[in-house]
């Protein structure tokens, strides 16, 4: 992979910045150059709240290369409040207690270390939404 590759995705990875389509008004994540709904260009950056709920989930015991040290870990499709689905790991949760529909929120975590340089890739994961005291 490489440093530049992760660096140029920093605003979406660290802050869940996507886009809102100026034409159809839909919110888009991850960001693109062309709206997948109306095919118009020119979107405006949109900061997602990070709140959503679990659409589906599974736990990985046979990880791809680079993720061995984290296994087993749980991945999910999270339905964001603003509409889009996002693929991410779940964190701070017992896999036995995860359920479809469960409210979750985005947190920033270490995703992996890459290559002999040990570049640490940070990005979004989701955890069960904390209840107000």
């Amino acid at each position, binding site marked *: 992979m490489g440093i530049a590759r992760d660096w140029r995705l920093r605003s979406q990875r660290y802050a869940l910045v996507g886009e809102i389509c100026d034409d159809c008004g839909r919110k888009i994540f991850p960001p693109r150059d062309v709206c997948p709904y109306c095919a118009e260009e020119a979107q405006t950056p949109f900061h997602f709240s990070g709140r959503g709920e679990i659409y589906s*989930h599974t*736990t990985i015991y*046979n990880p*791809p290369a*680079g993720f061995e040290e984290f296994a087993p870990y749980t991945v999910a499709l999270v339905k964001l409040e603003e509409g*889009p*689905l996002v*693929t991410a790991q779940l964190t701070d949760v017992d896999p036995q207690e995860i359920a479809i529909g469960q409210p979750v929120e985005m947190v920033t975590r270490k995703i992996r270390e890459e290559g002999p340089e040990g570049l640490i890739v940070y*990005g979004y994961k989701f955890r069960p939404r904390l209840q107000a005291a």
Partner: protein
Amino acid sequence: MRDVSIIGIGQTPVGEHWNRSLRHLAYDAIAAAMQDAGIERADALYVGNMLSGEISGQSHLGPLIADFAGLRGIEAVKIEGACAGGAAAVRIGYLAVASGLQDIVICAGVEKMTDEVGSRLTSALAQAADADHETVHGISFVALNALLMRRYMYEYGVRHEDFAGFAINSHANAVGNPNAMFRRPITLEAFKRAGMVAAPINLLDSSPMADGAAAVILCPSEQAREFTDDAVRIAASAMATDSLSLHDRHDPLWLQAAQDSARRAYRQAGVGPADIDLFELHDAFTIMAALSLEATGFADRGRGWQLAANGDIRPDGRIPICTMGGLKARGHPVGATGVYQIVEAVQQLRGKAGDCQIPNVHLAMTQNIGGSGATIVTHILEGG
């Protein structure tokens, strides 16, 4: 546009070929297909393959395999569409012959998977997904299918064992196919207690990784009689795409590219689902079989699993599927699978499928799926 027919087929057994490399496997299938068609040369070679760069450190398969097969100098190129690369290569060959620009075309699919194992093979397969937005999070290919299957079970109130019929049917059918990897039946009990891979997907929901190669020879239908009395006409050929990532689908539980490519194929052939005598579908995981049946019009949304539960998919059922073992039991050498499906449909239409023969087959459909549904290629073949 010219009508196009298949005049020769070839395949290696699917399995662990420790003594044969990528190029040897491709040659074995191509040589068998050329012999079957009675040809010694061709105008072009299209090679379906996914993983040669990752696993064999080998790109640039077109000239490598053309030269190795004794065809040095012809037009040759690799066609890549993840697990749909095989049928995509046939699609490109079809376009070449139908256009009138080429007469004799070889479409081959080859995959050498067993030279890599474990996490590196898992990584290689995950390249079918979005690197920046799916695989970066450690997603594996099984996991993407598991996300689909869990949501499907949740939305439609389906139990895991309701999918068992897909795996049981494929294994039962593979018993009669000498080229299949797993030629033994499995029971419902075995399905229910199989080891978990990524819940809810267990080992017997999943097709095995394998080595293999298959090839078909295409020519204009008007010339087919010069080569064989057994020609099979390509009544329809269609490819469609969807978003690469699962999370970008407008409806994750609907294979839009399966519906789009099947509709185009039905329209081209002038037929509908009720006219299809057998369907070689892409049962990489049992959930994919259910989704494929729904999107192609054989079952209503959320009901694809019922065709497995009620026996409709068996050889004596309404719409036999995976008649020679499917991906589940014939094996899934990813970039070759789409060509195997077409080779098997030709065997059936020729009436030469041996113990796997389905009686009275006139129209056969094949559907090859790349990624979690991003590239889908559908063919309809018509017997003579």
